[in-house]
């Protein structure tokens, strides 16, 4: 993936992946939030299944 915002290390400041691409940042951040939310949903599902199995 061609995600580098720099072509050399001369006078570099911000240089992280997608730092020149708001879309890339948005997609990465949305995916991170999505994983966090999925974790919560997954735990709730696991709890329900576990409790149902033992009750």
């Amino acid at each position, binding site marked *: 993936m061609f995600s580098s915002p720099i072509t050399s290390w001369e006078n570099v*400041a911000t240089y*992280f992946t997608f730092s020149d691409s708001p879309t890339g940042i948005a997609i990465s*951040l949305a995916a991170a939030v999505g994983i966090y939310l999925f974790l919560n949903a997954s735990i709730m599902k696991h*709890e329900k299944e*576990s409790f149902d199995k*033992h*009750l």
Partner: protein
Amino acid sequence: MTVETVESLKATFEMHQAMNVEVFYWWCTAIMFMIHAGFLAYEIGASRVKNALTSGMKNILTLSVIIPTFYFFGWWIYNAFPNGLIPIDASAALPWSLSMGPDVQDMGTGIFFAAFALFGATTGSILSGAVIERIRLSAFLILAAILGSAVWILAGAWGWHPDGWLLTELGYHDVGASGVVHAVAGFFALGVLMNLGARVGKFQNGVAMYIPPHSLPMALIGLMMIIVGFFGFLGGCIIFNGGETGWTTIYGNPTNLSAFGFNTLMGFAGGVVGAYLTSREPFWTMSGGLAGIITVAAGLDLYYPGLAFVLAASGGALMPIVGRMIEKMGVDDAVGAVAVHGFCGFYGVVMVGVFAASYPNVGDLPDITLSGQLIGAIVMALTGFIPGWGISYVLKKLNALRVPPQVEVLGLDLVEIPAKPYPESLPAQAIVENTLEPGQEKLV
């Protein structure tokens, strides 16, 4: 020496100074992880065998939800809300800002974000111990994220930010986070405990029963590990400035690690002595070390070490008494978190007002006063309690706060965790499992 040489030396010196700042907070953050290793051992030990791994799993996941949520919104809350509940522009702290990622020329943001995220994780772990053995993991992680990435850092913006209204209006002084971390987390836990209810069997005919930890030695070692981690925590509370300023507190007044060294150790020792004198019990005695440090943390830069010892001893002595009082009120705080963190944090903030009133703040900021500290302590307690009670009340009404009673009796490990803590020597789970007939999945 030529001008060019002087300029070159100056640039080299400034670069090394900035690197030293990074190195200092890097290791403070690393040492703070010891707090969580300690909480892990402490809570596993404090649980009964049937819940040991669930308590551990809860602890591991606490860190893993607070760190990202602190990145998503916690750092922004700290920077946006020093004036109260109306945000100011803090767009550089939003997660899509270019300041929130690797930048060769920014040697501060990331390392301070890391230290603050670990402070937040500590609040989550404080809650974690209080609610063991009956809270749903899903509910706990929601509460931990809110506490660790929103509630405490809002209090931090008010009482721990250079422009926080508690400082600018009242001269609030809380250098070691007695209020902004411990009181907030302790009172948040109290609010949750009131809705969560006691463990099955804890109260019989209104009398509190003793539910022994399955491994008191593990709990004691965990507590000592938390103490080790506190040196990273308190180190992270001091500001390593560039230039000629040197060390300052988070409020800008001069201090140094020597001041923290005197009073952290005297606080630990005093707390242990005080707790031993009023409890004679190892769990409370070891918790006394924590209670002592929390009691003196707010004035860690100001106290005469002898006074710090006395204050810590009083906090440590009162802590088990407060713990028993809370229990008599029908609140089942499995590890005494409300007494250790809530009470001692509150008490520590007030004691600064009693013994350090009239100390100046820098610039035009008001002096430290008893009334300012008292109001600050109340603000901290309410900032923790109100959301803790309110959000857990909603979860309770949704039947999403607590595990079903049958599950609690069986043990959470058996029901939720695909592993056993002591597979070759654990009688409790074996007994439960041996009640199953071959092929039978449900207990009769």
